[in-house]
C-alpha cells in the first residue's frame, strides 16, 4: 500500500511542484500517473524513491513513513523498489549481466543467489545471449529491458516506471508495456509515470491525472483526457 497524505512540494523561492496531493495505491495495482510537462509527475515519482522530500504532508510505503527518511535508510528503501527511467540509467562500463547483478551485489546477496537469479531475469526480459554486451552495444528497447531486469532482481513489491517508453519506437513501446503488464500479473504494484496517450488508453487501468501539481482526476479504468 502506498499512501500520500496532503503532500506538497515547494521549490525555493515559491514554485509549487505538488500541492496538497492525497492518494492511495493498493498492493497489486497498475496505476498510470499522467500529466503534461511540469504537472508534478516526476516530483511525485522522486518522492516515492526518496530522492525528494515533501515540504508538507506524509509519504508512506508499505507502512513505512519515508517522509523524513534518513540518508542511511535510503538504500534499504530502494532495494525494495524497482525503478525504470526514460534515460535507462545503466552503468555504461558494466555488461548487461553486471548491470543486473550489481543491484544484488550492493545488497550483499551471495554469489549463488546472483548466479541463479540474474539468468532468470535475463530470460524473462528476452535478452538471452546478450548478457556480456555493454549497454552501448544494445538498441534502446534492449537497454530498457536491461533496466526492467535490473528493477526485478530484488523481486520488488513496487515497480516505479518514469516515462519508460519515452525514448522507444512503437514496437519496443508495446514490448515494454507487455513486460510491465506481465510483471503486474505476478502481483507487483506498477506505477507508470507517462504522458503517452496511446499507452495509457491501451492499458484500461487506473489513471491519476495531475495538473499544475494537483490531482484533477483519478479514474479506475481511465483514459488520457488531457489536451495534446
Amino acid at each position, binding site marked *: 500500500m502506498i499512501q500520500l497524505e496532503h503532500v506538497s512540494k515547494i521549490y525555493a523561492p515559491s514554485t509549487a511542484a505538488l500541492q496538497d496531493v492525497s492518494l492511495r495505491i493498493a498492493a497489486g495495482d497498475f496505476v498510470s500517473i499522467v500529466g503534461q510537462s511540469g504537472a508534478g509527475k516526476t516530483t511525485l515519482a522522486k518522492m516515492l*524513491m*526518496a*530522492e*525528494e522530500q515533501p515540504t508538507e504532508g506524509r509519504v508512506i510505503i508499505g507502512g513505512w513513513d519515508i517522509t523524513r527518511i534518513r*540518508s*542511511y535508510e*535510503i*538504500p*534499504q*528503501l*530502494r*532495494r525494495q523498489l524497482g*525503478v525504470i527511467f526514460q534515460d535507462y*540509467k*545503466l*552503468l*555504461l*562500463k558494466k555488461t548487461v549481466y553486471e548491470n543486473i547483478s*550489481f*543491484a544484488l*551485489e*550492493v*545488497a*550483499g546477496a*551471495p*554469489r549463488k543467489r546472483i548466479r541463479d537469479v540474474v539468468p532468470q531475469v535475463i530470460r524473462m526480459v528476452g535478452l538471452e545471449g546478450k548478457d556480456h554486451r555493454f549497454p552501448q552495444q544494445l538498441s534502446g528497447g534492449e537497454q530498457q529491458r536491461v533496466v526492467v531486469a*535490473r528493477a526485478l532482481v*530484488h523481486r520488488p513489491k513496487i515497480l516505479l516506471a518514469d516515462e519508460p517508453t519515452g525514448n522507444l519506437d512503437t514496437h519496443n513501446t508495446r514490448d515494454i508495456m507487455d513486460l510491465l503488464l506481465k510483471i503486474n500479473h505476478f502481483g507487483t504494484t506498477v506505477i507508470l509515470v507517462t504522458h503517452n496517450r496511446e499507452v495509457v488508453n491501451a492499458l484500461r487501468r487506473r489513471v491519476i491525472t495531475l495538473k499544475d501539481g494537483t490531482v484533477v482526476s483519478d479514474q479506475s479504468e481511465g483514459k488520457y483526457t488531457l489536451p495534446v
Partner: protein
Amino acid sequence: MITFWRIFAASWKHVFRNAWIGLATIFVFMMALFSVNVLLGVNAMLDQTLKILEDRIDVTVSFTTTAPVAVVNQARFYLASLPQVSEVTQLSADEVLQRFRDTHKAESKVLGALEELNGNPLGAQITVKAKNPEDYPFIIKAIQNPQYAEFINPPVYDDHQIAIARVQEIGRSTRIVGAILVALFALFGLLIAFNAIRVAVYTQREEIAIMRLVGASSFYIRAPFILEGLWLTLIALIFSGLAIYGAVLWLEPALSPLFEGAGAGLSGFFIGQAPLIIAVEGGSLIILVMMVSWVAVGRYIKR
C-alpha cells in the same frame, strides 16, 4: 566479507575500465612527486656543496720560531680536547719548511731568498678542523689563550673569520630558500593531485548517481573510489621511485666531477633517506587522495 571482496574487485575494475583517466591521474601524481623530489635533490646537492666548502675550512695556527716544542704540543692537546674540534694536525718547523719548498719549487727567486736567510724562518703549525663552521670563532678565541698568545702569529685569525662567516651566510640562505621552495612545490603537488582526483570522480558522477538509485549504500559507493585512488597513488609512487632511483644512479657519477670527485650527494640523500621520503611523500599523498575521494564522491550521493 563478500562485500569487502566486491569493493576490492570493483576498485580494480574502476582502474582498468577508466584506464585513460587513471593514466592521466598517475601522470599528474608522478609530476607532483617529481617536482618535489627534484627540489629535494637540488637541496641535497646544495648541502653537499656546503659540506665540501665547510670541509675545506680550517684554522691554521702558525707558531713563532722561538716557540718551544713543548708549548706547541701542549697547544695541540688543548685544542684536541675541545668538544668543538674534530681534527688537529701538527707540523713541525722542518715539515712546514719542506712543505713551503714543495709549494714553491718552481719559483727559484723564492727558494733563493729562503737560502739566504740562513736557517728556518718558519715555525711549527697546527691545523684545526671544527665539527661545525659555527664553532670556528670559539676555537679561534680559545687559541688566543694568554698561555700561547706570545708564540702565535696573529694575522691568520681575521682571514679565516671572514671566510667562515661568508660560508655560514651562504649555507643559511640556501637552506632557507631550499626549504621554502620544497614546501611550495609540495603544496603545488598536493593541489594538482587534489584536482586530478576531483576530475576523475566528476567524470563518474552519473555512475555514482545510478549506484545510489539501485540501492548502494554510501560506503559501498565510496569505498571503490577511495581504493581506486589508493591503487593509482601506489602505482605512481612505484614508478616515481624507480624513475628517481634510475635518475640518481645516472646523475651521481655524471655530476661527481663538479663536486671534485666527492659525489653529488644525491645517492647518499635519496637512498639513505628513502624510508623517510617514501613515508612522508607517499603517506601525505595517500591521505590526501583518500580524503579528496571521500569528499568528492560525497557530493554525488546526497540522496
